[in-house]
């Protein structure tokens, strides 16, 4: 059987190994710990590195070290740990190193709780650390996508030499679903030539310091050029029954699954409702959103947060149609019924 019943968190690690990831550096935190556990289980027998670091700060800097060798490597955590990693992510982006960072969001701020939330959008999508950088952010909504998008994240990271996030919530991490691996070919690990390998022909420099303001500005401009290319090429999304929809629901991760059910139920009551689901949060599929602005009368953004994605949607929509927001926080997952009620009111 090439299908397996798996938690999303386990699917991440299988996807990573198939993608040729050779090193995992992490620190336990609920609800992301199964990722470290799966890595501890599978990486060493596959001749790959697993290190449980002393902190998230150490683990992201280990990632910097391994990524600087031009190999595929990763770390995973949840909100509080991602906060700690931010300085390191900024260095990785500044030094233009590829790596994959998985964030399984939990309730915040502070210690919050371990229930699923989507309050890390800002710290992950907007850069989070210091300086003018951006990370690509994938937003899986199933165990299958936890595997597939992690696999893809390594390609994207290498293609642009840039950190790439897989941003999911506790729900997607903990949920078990069938995962099919048959379409994923194992990628042979290799060391990219720009990396430091401890050999005579790899005396390269991994660095993010540029003392001269003009030189640093030029470096920044080069980064912005790269981000522009990413915006043009890497946005992915999924539509569901949007063609004739008057009201389009927008959500990512577990929320998008709930919204899909809302669309079905709303359609059963004769309402023209559809779903737009970004699969990348940065870059967002701007053109597609603009196209939908042309056909729909209203958007409703639903998030398990105080409203973070909705800011970006409103920036794109520029007031052309109303963009409503509904959010739950604290680890409460909105029910189909409660969103359906709002949907009916807005229709």
């Amino acid at each position, binding site marked *: 059987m090439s299908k397996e019943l798996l938690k999303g968190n386990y699917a991440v690690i299988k996807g990573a190994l198939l993608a040729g990831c050779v*090193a995992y550096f992490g620190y336990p935190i609920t609800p992301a710990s199964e990722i470290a556990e799966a890595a501890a289980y599978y990486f060493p027998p596959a001749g790959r590195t697993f290190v449980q670091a002393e902190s998230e700060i150490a683990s992201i800097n280990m990632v910097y070290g391994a990524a600087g060798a031009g190999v595929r490597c990763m770390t995973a955590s949840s909100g509080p740990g991602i906060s700690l990693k931010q300085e390191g992510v900024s260095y990785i982006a500044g030094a233009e190193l590829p790596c994959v960072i998985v964030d399984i969001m939990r309730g915040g701020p502070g210690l919050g709780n371990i229930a699923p939330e989507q309050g890390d959008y800002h710290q992950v999508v907007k850069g989070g650390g210091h300086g003018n950088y951006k990370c690509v952010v994938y937003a899986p909504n199933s165990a299958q996508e936890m595997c597939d998008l992690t696999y893809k994240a390594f390609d994207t990271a290498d293609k642009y030499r840039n950190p790439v996030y897989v941003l999911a919530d506790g729900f997607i991490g903990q949920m078990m679903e069938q995962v099919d691996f048959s379409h994923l070919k194992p990628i042979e690990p290799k060391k990219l030539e720009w990396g430091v390998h401890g050999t005579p022909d790899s005396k390269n420099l991994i660095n993010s310091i540029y003392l001269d303001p003009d030189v640093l500005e030029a470096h920044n401009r080069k980064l912005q050029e790269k981000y522009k290319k990413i915006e043009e090429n890497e946005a992915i999304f999924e539509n569901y029954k949007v063609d004739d929809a008057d009201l389009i629901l927008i959500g990512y991760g577990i929320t998008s699954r709930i919204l899909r059910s809302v669309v079905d139920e709303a359609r059963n009551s004769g309402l023209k409702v559809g779903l737009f689901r970004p699969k990348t949060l940065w870059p967002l599929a701007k053109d597609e959103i603009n196209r939908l602005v042309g056909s729909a009368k209203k958007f409703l953004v639903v998030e398990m947060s105080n409203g973070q994605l909705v800011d970006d949607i409103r920036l794109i929509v520029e007031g052309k149609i109303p963009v409503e927001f509904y959010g739950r926080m604290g680890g409460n*997952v909105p029910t189909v019924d409660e969103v359906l009620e709002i949907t009916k009111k807005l229709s």
Partner: protein
Amino acid sequence: MYEPILEKPKSFFDIYKEKSGDQTITHYCPGCGHGIVHKYVASALDELNLTDKAIFVSPVGCSVFGYYYFNTGNYQAAHGRAPAVATGTKRVNPDSIVISYQGDGDLAAIGTAEIIHAANRGELMTVIFINNAIYGMTGGQMAPTTLVGQKTTTSPRGRNPYNEGYPVKMCELISQLNAPIYVERVALNNAANRAKAKRAIKKALKLQAERKGFTFVEVLSQCPTGWKVDPPDSLKWIEEKMIPYYPVKVFKDISNEAEPYPEPKKIVSGNELLEILGIKSEEEKDLKKYEIPKEYRNPKIKIAGFGGQGVLLLGVALAQVGMMEGYNVTWIPSYGPEMRGGTANCSVNISDGLIGSPVVEKPTILVAMNKPSMEKFEKDMVPGGILFYNTAMIDEEPKRDDITKVPVPATKIASDLGNIRVGNMVMLGAIIEKTKLLPFETVKKGFEYFISRKNLIPLNEKAVEAGMRYVRENNL
């Protein structure tokens, strides 16, 4: 005063191309110890013929520009994190020689966790620790190693132990750990000590090349600028002030006894990786989906009970077998606020199509293993749904009359089989017998996936059969 420099080590660049301004001299202040230690590192690499394998990690601090000088692989690390960066690169470049070069603010303040744990893991790296009792780069602030009474810009009246504590002795700390094999403190104050410093650095690198273990050399080093003294006086200051507090000696050396580390396992790929991951590449037989009877198709199942009644496992079993029959499935345990009140529950969907929300809000099938579960979820059931309830633990009748009720004394039947923990499997038997949701044959094939202790499979199978029999014999 200094030994004459006869020749530039070849581990140094001839011209410091990364540097702005004069590319033939270093960026260090006159009289600074960093340049001397750089030279010792470079000549040790030369003498050991390790230059081409070396990776130099520059910290944040005055030696942030170490990469200007070393003709090796180079990293510049975040403040304090050089040992973590060194760990990352060494683990994926196991044949390299990795040097984590750090100042005292970097290593003994902001990076204390990283150095202690890199040492404790016994990373195969060499740490060169420049203890100059001050923050040089940022203009002379107090370091964790600043001496009691020493004036700095942030201890303007002298370091006061009641406010700032005592200077940290890193060799003393590191040498307490099991893993490090060689820990020595040296000083740059006179020719004899400098010769020792040079030897210590070479020894540490040699031990790394022999894969013996973690090596650590602390260098008491002058910072005339930060200390606001002339270079000659700075050497005297090391001797008179630093050495009495920071004894210069070998703190630990077990390099003779230490066995070289085993070679790391080679990276496996292709089919071997698939095998490790348990991914079987055999083509999916175009299996015909088992036909679920119409009235039970696309079930939304809620299973609830006390923790320990195996409700989560029962859910996994249904999802696993459903998947094996070619359906899309989801399983999600109760999460967050739902978990209050001592009951555990899970939601399972088995569906022809894509599953939207995996949370079962309105079950078509409810399994209640205890009374609070029935009280909580019976009211949510869709009309026409089917309720399986554990009469061994529930002494009340369900209230609804628009649902099908299947009373099963699951816990009792399980205890008759000798283990009350298989009550969940009795319920599984009852469900598949009553609804024909899934075939027993596939449940049997599924055991190996959801029962982790193989010796318990026969008991579980018996329990499923007992549940099936109970439904049959009682015409439920």
